[in-house]
């Protein structure tokens, strides 16, 4: 299986080599992403059902979402995905400085996303377009418009929590990079963070047209 010489600092004792270790870590991460997809999946199913039952109400209610801000956030998240992917590439090439810069940009873009989201939320709270029993807005025609905003807040809220968690992880990875934990031979944690961040981006890629662009 393994010879002791192969055991370097970052190799855990129960793996025989670093390829086995990084392959295991990546597979584990993908399975975690699978659970995330199915977790969001429940909300997507709820969305699909209530849209199928109330197509007119969904159309009327979605007009109160700001397409410009939604599109802006889409662009922000795509860009942050790009910088995340590039930061891994820089680590593969051994450029630690640039990796850190790109991670920092990713972190800032995630913050921008949340700030935009904050403005959207506060506008809706101001109008009383709140989920469930707190819904007080009167300007939307159709059956139970509060359900649209329940779904809107739950989907974007759960996504927002994931963005927040992602910021925490990226910050931690940034710190570890600056500490010199990673090298072209070992950068698995950055890679796993990247996978998670791309999934957060991917979910927004679906949320944006489904919520903001009901034709």
């Amino acid at each position, binding site marked *: *299986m393994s010879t002791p010489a192969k055991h370097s600092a970052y190799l855990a004792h129960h793996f025989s080599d670093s390829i086995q270790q990084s392959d295991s870590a990546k*597979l584990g991460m993908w399975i975690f992403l699978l*659970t995330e997809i199915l977790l969001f*999946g429940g909300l997507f199913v709820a969305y699909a059902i209530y849209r199928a039952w109330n197509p007119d109400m969904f159309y009327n209610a979605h007009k109160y979402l700001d397409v410009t801000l939604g599109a802006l956030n889409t662009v922000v998240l795509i860009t942050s995905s790009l910088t995340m992917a590039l930061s891994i590439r820089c680590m593969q090439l051994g450029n630690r400085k640039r990796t850190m810069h790109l991670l920092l940009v990713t972190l800032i873009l995630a913050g921008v996303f949340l700030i935009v989201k904050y403005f959207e939320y506060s506008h809706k709270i101001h109008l009383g377009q709140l*989920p*469930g*029993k707190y819904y007080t807005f009167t300007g939307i025609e159709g059956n139970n418009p509060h*359900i649209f905003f329940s779904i809107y807040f*739950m989907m974007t809220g759960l996504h927002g929590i994931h963005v927040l968690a992602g910021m925490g992880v990226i910050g931690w990875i940034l710190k570890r990079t600056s500490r010199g934990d990673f090298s072209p031979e070992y950068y698995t944690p950055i890679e796993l963070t990247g996978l998670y961040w791309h999934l957060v981006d991917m979910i927004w890629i679906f949320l944006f047209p489904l919520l903001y662009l009901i034709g």
Partner: protein
Amino acid sequence: MNTMPEKHYLNEKRGWKSWLFTLDHKRIGILYLYGIMAAFLVGGVFAMLVRLELLHPGRDLMDAKTYNQFFTLHGAVMIFLFIIPSIPAALGNFVLPQMLGAKDVAFPKLNLASWYIYVVGALVAIYSIYAGGVDTGWTFYTPYSTTTSTSVVAMTLGAFILGFSSIFTGLNFIVTIHKMRAPGMTWFKMPLFIWGLYATAIIQVMATPVLGITLLLLIMERVLAVGIFDPAMGGDPVLFQHFFWFYSHPAVYIMILPGMGIISELIATFSQKKIFGYKAIAFSSLAIAFISFLVWGHHMFVSGQSQLASMIFSFLTFLVGIPSGIKVFNWVATMYKGIIRFDTPMLYALAFLFLFTIGGLTGIFLGTLATDVHLHDTYFVVAHFHYVMMGGTVMAFLGGIHFWWPKMWGRMFNKKWALLSWLLIFIGFNMTFFTQFILGTKGMPRRYYNYLDQYQPLHAFSSYGSWVLGLGFLIMAVYLFYSIKRGPVAGNNPWGSLTFEWKSSSPPPVANFETEPILKHGPYDYDKIIPERTYS
């Protein structure tokens, strides 16, 4: 004379810290074992109290409200705290890396984290008892669960947290099986218990997140009245049942599949014969896992689900019978002309075969649209799932516990007491639950506090059975705990098994094997090799 190894995983490090911060999968398995034993005790006490109350119609010792809370707690504790983690997290954790010839699971820290999450989830669930209890049944059906004044939020939050523990175990097992097998251990040389755990792990990671979002939505419904499940807010209560059963039907296979894996090990070992139809058993586990996601609507035939959906779900439900049947036939064929030894684990395997077959066949009655309308929500259903869950999973679990007990502690339990306890459990179980099939066909609805006088003799008989059952478990608890310190030294391979975990000492060393293990023969090659037994 057998001797204990000088150093092993139990005495290498000592003190409570060495247990609470351990990353050793064997110790984590033991920690889980303590957890689920405690849960089984709590759930069992609730069950006995419920049966005691049902001895006569009307009030015996508690009022109807308390009764509702007690059967809810019995169900929730047994399902979420005992049976789901029982085989995978306790026995699976202990055995899986050893069977694969690995030093540990792929992510030991995640493994320990999953145990702590289990404990936290359990504490939150117990908190709900203090905060007013729960009386919705373990299924939390809306709209009752959104209107009752009991502490549904705490209990669902507990179940939500427990879900993560289950996901982490499943994730760990999948990666371990894919990446950590010893040299020579190809997919089709893996013991069938591993195949069972693999299929289980797939369901754990696929289905549990949906339970998570369902429970979150339920909490949201109670806190914000979001209008997804609550009809008063324009929601659809039947939708809750879809969400709930998308997880909870596959979850019954989280419970039974690892049990089936254990039975494969037991039957091959105690028949000293090559398992019949290895690949058929292995693939039928995967087939069950896949089909389990297509049948959840059979719980909703009388809930107002559309006829089209009911027909599709009923038809697909019959398909589950095929892989289950394949397994049972292969086990029976394995025993044919084998050298059968009736050691304690084998007795439980035989009990499993008998009881699971009854449980499985009555499941077919319930999956049939027309008969289900008659039997739905009667004691027939209660009897059916206890035959599958207790007659199936718990029997397999007990078989596994007795089988690996000498591996865990290096000592053997008293087989005479074990035989007595097995007899009591087998007889008590059938007294308790076969009676309920009859009650159900006579029309006794489940979950009722009061009932007509004509059901009294059968209810009483069922309650007497529960006492016999309880006595059997009491005896087991005594002789098992006694044997940990004082049982005779078991030796390395007391049952003469060919699977990997018996190649090391019992109890095994911290790193599982003294030397690098290399697979030289399949797990069931009893026709080529007669294994050496060290205890009889």
